[in-house]
């Protein structure tokens, strides 16, 4: 009984910790303006370095962090061994076609999943409808998944 309770408490704490990390992320994407439809247009028109700089330097720092974490054998605060899940490639179809579909949506709506949440927080309330439509898309994928090639 006691063990279960501790697990529950850790789960509560973990939820709150992630709420906090998300809040920081929401501030970053807002202040970097990557949630702006205008910035996304600028990127897809190759008219500014801004978006490339944000994504590129994020990947550089992320890659360096992963090298350090893997080499040092660091563990998480809860003592877990760090595991990095491998993305599924399938036949390549799912990433190529799914990726292109996602890109079509990104180019139209000018926001990807994180920024959609951040925009709602910024008071662009109509993005709640974009979110609802994205959830509908997710639901459609979940129901068609077994009938489409991956």
């Amino acid at each position, binding site marked *: 009984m006691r063990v279960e309770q501790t697990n529950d408490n850790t789960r509560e704490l973990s*939820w709150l910790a*992630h709420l906090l*990390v*998300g*809040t*920081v*992320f929401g501030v*970053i*994407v807002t*202040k*970097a303006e990557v949630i702006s439809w*205008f*910035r996304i247009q600028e*990127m*897809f028109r190759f*008219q*500014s370095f801004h978006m*490339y700089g944000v994504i590129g330097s*994020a*990947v*550089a*720092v*992320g*890659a360096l*962090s*992963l090298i350090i*974490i893997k080499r040092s054998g660091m563990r*998480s*605060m809860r003592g877990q061994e760090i595991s990095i899940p491998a993305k599924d*490639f399938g036949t390549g179809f*799912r*990433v*190529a*076609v*799914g*990726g*292109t*579909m*996602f*890109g*079509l*949506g*990104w180019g*139209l709506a000018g926001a*990807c*999943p*994180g920024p*959609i949440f951040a925009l*709602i*927080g*910024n008071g*662009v309330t109509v993005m709640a*409808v974009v979110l609802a*439509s994205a959830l*509908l*898309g*997710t639901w*459609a994928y*979940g129901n068609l*998944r077994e009938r489409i090639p991956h």
Partner: protein
Amino acid sequence: MIESLSQPWPWYVAGPLTGLMIPLLLLIDNRPFGISTSYQHICAALVPGRSSYFAYDWKKTGKWNLGLALGTLLGGFVAGSLLTNPDPIAISEATRTDLAALGLTDFSGLVPAEVFAWSGFSSLTGLVMMIGGGFLIGFGARYAGGCTSGHAIFGLSDLQFPSLIAVLGFFAGGLISTHFLLPLIF
């Protein structure tokens, strides 16, 4: 302090901070950075239906990710209300010219108010961009197994080949929308 934080953050500040999300999430609770999984969890919680894709204990699997997503919304609120930047987004003159040629005149907000407004649903442009765009984002992200955060930032940081193909797809799609679809619907 607040004043300088309220200015737009340059890429060399915002990018590295975004990259730090990766070690932060791994070191807190061994979680992979990614936002679009939250869509799956929300569906599993609200409308699971009969699909095995939504038949799991979303509270157990997804609570952390839903916290991250809700936090992102809160962060948007915090930045939008406490660190407000009153100036329009300083996009390049070339982009402004291109978008003006499409017929956009209002560059004051984060998004073009002429399309992304409740009245926007009465036009084909608004419907395609908001409803069509949203649907493709949700369907595509889960089909590809990740979005900008999961594939472009986390996957590329780990030099994963599937993520490279996905990101090339993101870009191909974005270019088609920008250079082919937008001129059609405006």
